[in-house]
């Protein structure tokens, strides 16, 4: 079995303690479920002297449903998220997205926070050290060229988490703990369009919780395109939240994953609100989705296919939710 790098393991019991430990150790990393970090450590994609295990922090766990919002600790496992009856009933996109991640055993370990902070992925990056060495490395690690866009100054590795688009469509916000205290960000502000710096976390900051507003009258869903039914990152994933008022669209939010360096919230959909969801509206919707994504050669499936399929997924899901809301 290939060898794991050695390191120091720390297990704080509060978010503040975790942040303080992180600040005191120059090369440290947070560990939640480990389903993303451990393979990356093993492949030499992450290097660390200190691992701060978040598993013992009580405040990171648990789901609380209030009158107008749901509060979810970042340490909640995806299995728990998918199985929570309140979430399945009120926020189906979130439950469906959680259930679309990897396989059942991964979801027992993998956490909400981990999936939101998932490392960006690229076929030139998610490889072993000897492979990357043989392929002359890439900008994201040890190299200086982005292999999918050689003339670019930035890295185009793709964000491939399933849960983020669902939460974007559901208008969630996140609580962040740092050495200077706590702050709250709209989830849309949490991501940057950059494969190397895709999270708006300052050094040592920790994602502690997610809050999702409950919106009566809205329905939601998540759909994922992949080559097989499990243990597969999305070639493209689409989340939709939609409100219908009779024959008119009363609200629409769409977010995509796997097709940019961040989960993309699709802009311009407000123009469709107040209108019937006819063929013209659907065509407009497809155009807006296409405009909002930036698929690159980061997966083995081609760019044209992912560009073509993402609007189709969105259209399929919007149509379904629209029909169900009648």
């Amino acid at each position, binding site marked *: 079995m290939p060898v794991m790098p050695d390191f120091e393991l720390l297990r704080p019991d509060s978010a503040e303690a975790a942040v303080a430990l992180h600040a005191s150790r120059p090369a440290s990393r947070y560990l939640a479920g480990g389903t993303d970090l451990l393979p990356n450590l093993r492949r030499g994609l992450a290097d660390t002297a200190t691992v701060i295990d978040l598993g013992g922090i009580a405040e990171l766990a648990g789901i609380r449903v209030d009158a107008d919002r749901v509060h979810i600790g970042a340490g909640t496992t995806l299995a728990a998220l998918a199985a929570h009856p309140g979430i399945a009933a009120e926020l189906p996109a979130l439950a469906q997205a959680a259930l679309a991640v990897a396989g*059942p055993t991964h979801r027992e370990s993998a956490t909400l926070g981990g999936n939101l902070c998932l490392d960006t992925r690229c076929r030139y990056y998610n490889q072993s050290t000897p492979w990357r060495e043989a392929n002359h490395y890439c900008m994201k690690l040890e190299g200086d060229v982005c292999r999918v866009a050689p003339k670019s100054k930035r890295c185009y590795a793709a964000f491939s988490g399933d849960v983020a688009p669902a939460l974007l469509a559901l208008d969630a916000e996140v609580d962040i703990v740092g050495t200077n205290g706590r702050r709250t960000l709209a989830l849309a502000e949490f991501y940057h369009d950059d494969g190397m710096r895709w999270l708006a976390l300052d050094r040592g900051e920790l994602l502690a919780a997610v809050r999702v507003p409950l919106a009566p009258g809205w329905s939601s869903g998540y759909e994922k395109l992949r080559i097989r039914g499990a243990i597969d990152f999305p070639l493209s994933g689409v989340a939709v939240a939609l409100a219908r008022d009779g024959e008119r669209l009363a609200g629409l939010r769409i977010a995509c994953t796997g097709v940019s360096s961040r989960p993309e919230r699709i802009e311009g959909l407000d123009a469709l609100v107040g209108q019937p969801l006819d063929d013209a509206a659907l065509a407009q919707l497809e155009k807006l989705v296409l405009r909002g994504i930036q698929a690159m050669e980061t997966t083995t499936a081609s760019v044209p296919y992912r560009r073509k399929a993402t609007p189709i997924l969105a259209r399929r899901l919007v149509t379904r939710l629209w029909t169900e809301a009648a």
Partner: protein
Amino acid sequence: MMSVETEIRFKLNGREVSLKVPVAMKTLAMLRDKLGMTGTKYACGEGECGACTVEVDGRTVNSCLMYAVDCDGRELVTIEGLRTPEGLHPVQQAFVDHGAVQCGFCMPGMIMQAKNLIENNPGLTREEAQRGLEGNLCRCTGYTKVLDAVEAVVSGKSCGSRP
């Protein structure tokens, strides 16, 4: 770097265990290399195949994605822990009876996952079993006989095979 070893205590198949493990060691390596429990298999080491599935506090996880130190204070069940003095666990017996075992290399993980699914859902349907086993790769069986075995455990029916 010097290896940092940590003392851990946990329950393994019903027995208390205490041992020192390097901090970077995975649960899979601890089971196989430190404890000689080779029933749990290495097939990918990256959480992509399910061959190393074990139960931790009643939930199934990929032991290659879990640090051994995280076993501290927990309760582990591995494939070796299913057998009782009376014989094979009913899920193991059903896999044998229904021809679900060919080369058998993925089966410890597959059986751990199947057992967990059945225990948590006594009315498990074939389709639910398919979804529940989606993280366990098998190259020999095409999963059909695996699903037959799971269905048989749930329904209590036998297929009349001979030993």
